[in-house]
């Protein structure tokens, strides 16, 4: 393998993953996403090693490379979440860093970041983040700092970090009650409905919505 091809290969796997999300699979689509003068050469190399499957003009991930692509995507999108939600950076300043991070994060750090963020299901652009072993509750290495509202204890206070609503309408309705990233809330009840207090307003929410609001809880 050519020594420079490592990063490019990761990029190609990543591109094939996002192409699959957008239901694209031609060589031209790939060329539009990966900048390289030696693209054909690298793809041929990967095909020979069983990392991609070629069929005429179509290029897709193989069974064996799909897992690796998922890991790259997972690292990239977790990094995006980290930069945008926790540090509040703007997209232009973190997009490049996220691309760097996807190559250097090892599995253990990735899991810590994922737990820290409360196992977020989607990236800031709304694309799904492939779950890792930490997300299935198989092990809980550290207590996450950012958890869904659903996991909060009664009486706990916290600050909303991000919201992943299923519809835009839901987001704006939440916003109108002051349920927006940055707001501080206290959970006062979990059943039959979740009841939160923001400033002096009590709002009742159904469980579905409580799953989509991610909160950084106050310690102690």
């Amino acid at each position, binding site marked *: 393998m050519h020594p420079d091809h490592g990063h490019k290969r990761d990029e190609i796997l990543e591109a094939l993953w996002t192409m699959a999300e957008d239901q694209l699979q031609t060589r031209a689509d790939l060329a539009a996403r990966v900048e390289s003068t030696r693209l054909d050469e690298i793809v041929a190399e990967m095909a020979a090693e069983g990392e991609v499957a070629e069929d005429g003009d179509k290029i897709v991930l193989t069974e064996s490379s799909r897992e690796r692509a998922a890991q790259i995507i997972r690292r990239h999108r977790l990094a995006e979440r980290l930069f945008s939600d926790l540090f509040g950076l*703007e*997209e*232009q*300043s973190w997009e490049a860093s996220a691309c760097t991070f996807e190559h250097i994060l090892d599995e253990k750090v990735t899991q810590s970041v994922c737990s820290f963020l409360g196992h977020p299901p989607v990236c800031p652009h709304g694309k799904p983040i492939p779950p890792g072993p930490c997300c299935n509750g198989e092990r809980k290495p550290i207590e996450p700092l950012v958890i869904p509202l659903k996991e909060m204890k009664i009486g706990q206070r916290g600050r909303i970090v991000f919201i992943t609503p299923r519809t835009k*309408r*839901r987001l*704006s*309705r*939440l*916003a*109108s*009650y*002051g349920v*927006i990233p*940055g707001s501080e809330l206290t959970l*006062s*009840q979990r*059943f*039959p*409905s979740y*009841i939160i207090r923001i*400033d*002096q*307003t*009590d*709002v*009742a*929410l*159904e469980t*579905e*919505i409580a799953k989509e609001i991610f909160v950084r809880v106050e310690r102690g």
Partner: protein
Amino acid sequence: MALMAFLMTKAALTAPAGTQETSVVLVGNANVGKSVIFSYLTGKYVTVSNYPGTTVEITRGKARDLGPGVEVIDTPGVQSLSPESEDERVTRDVLLANPCATVLLVADSKNARRTLTLLVSVLELGRPVVIALNMSDEARLRGVTFDADAFSGITGIEAFPTVAVEGRGLDKVKRSLLRARRCPSPVLYPQAVEYAIEALSASLPQTNISSRAVILDLLTGESDLAALLPESVPAEFWTMVAHYQEEIRRACGRSSAAVISGARRAWVEQMAARISHTNERGAESWADRFGRWSMHPLWGLPILVAVLLAVFWFVGVFGAGTAVNFLEKTIFGAYLNPWATSLVNLVPWSLFRDLMVGPYGVITMALTYAFAIVLPVVGTFFLAFGALEDSGYLPRLAVMVDRLFRAMGLNGRAVLPMVLGLGCDTMATLTTRVLDTKKERVIVTLLLALGVPCSAQMGVILGMLSGLAFSATIIWVGVVLGVLFAVGLLSSKLLKGERSDFILEISPLRWPKVGNIASKTLARMEWYLKEAAPLFVYGTILLFIMDRASLLPWIEKASAPVIKGLLGLPREATQAFIVGFLRRDYGAAGLFVLARDGGLDAIQIVTSLITITLFMPCIANFFVVIKEHGLKAAILMGLFIIPFALFMGGAVNYVLRGVGWIG
């Protein structure tokens, strides 16, 4: 309605400036007291309650003491002016259609952020604003201060603490309305946004609305104002809008919508930090504690039962028992009817005498039913409902029933129309508009028509049940609730569409104000009597004609297989079902009299009650269903309800006889 608003708005946008009359528009979050202040400014009564979303339509009135020709407009509660919901669209359109109006922002003093968020939207429209910091007593109790003087000093907008239900502070607000001036929006946008506004306003034709407001709205890319702008807007304008959206994105690294809302939010946060302070809350007040218990999965249930029993006692025992007895026996029986009879007997025509005071007489039957049986029951229900509404218990009830309602394709928010249906199904069908999706509105309308007995009917029903063993009440409640749940479940599966989210503000518990409950009850009773009393008279005349034409015995005979065979009821009960077509409560009142005179045994009472509860709604309700959902839907509902009610009645009859229940 929506079309009207659209046309009005379009007219306002394209009309030359300065042609509108002066007016005051009340704007505010839900449940902050806009309607109380509206009543104060106009002297006109509107229904006021402690439940978000009571005002579903705009109300207009002439202002007192604000100068000649000044109109006051009350709007539904909103969170912002970006039209996310029907209420917000209505409110925004009112503002657009009245470009010269002064805005009276009614605020909840406890919630500075929400108040300021709404204020920003209003200021962007370039309107003169006065703020009523309402419910300042509650804010003080909770240790929240809103520094009105500091706020006015910074923004130049006058704000006054008020307690609207007690009339405190409102005179200052009124005086301030006369001198309110426009002030520019205080929000600082990034350079790129300001530049875009400047560049775009050159190509936007002058309208009645500040072009700054229109452009900011268009730049968010979520605007629906485009359809309202005059045709003279050149096509290049829209290309420019898209171009500047992209410019802003490039300069700020976020979408233009995020940049604009971010700038507004920043101002709100900054201002809130300067003028609003919260002291550490002392001991939780009793109202807070009780409010919490009433939603508790465990303690909430006994409280729910206690509330229901209290209403049952007040309406069923006091209203339908004591009050009805007094009115019917003493007032009508001993005084009014004998007087009326002796008076009418002076008239020589026997036909007229019979029509007035005969067995199917307008006075002896229709007016006696309406005023002696139905009125005390409806009155006591509306008193109880008013107290519940004002106390703030209803949103808590919504929380308690949310999970149950979800199985029926609804959510807890549907509890308001359902409980109001216990007062009057017609009124309740109109309020189904507060529900978000068409599917929810159809299901609630069907359930109201099918199985929610209105208060008059309910009072009569409870009056009849109270004479029987408690098991009779259990059977009636069980069958009706079971049917409601089963039909809800089934229709949620059959009807297409989605259920909406359950997101509901829980208003604080408050002691209901006696004056407010009284005026609310009076207004509702007046509405009810205007709606019901004429139908009682028509129903009686119908019966009178049928009796004269000897149709009654014929119908009684023809329907005998159903009434006697299936339901096991005496022939006389047929009349109750005939007039039940006009009003269910009138039908129930007929059964009431029949039962009290010993004409029905326990099984017959339970059977007839279940049948009439599930039976067709009254004519008025039917018309409202047509109005809201169309003739086809109304007829389909009727075709389902009538056979189904008879079938359920028959089933209950046979089962109870089968098991040998004696009551």
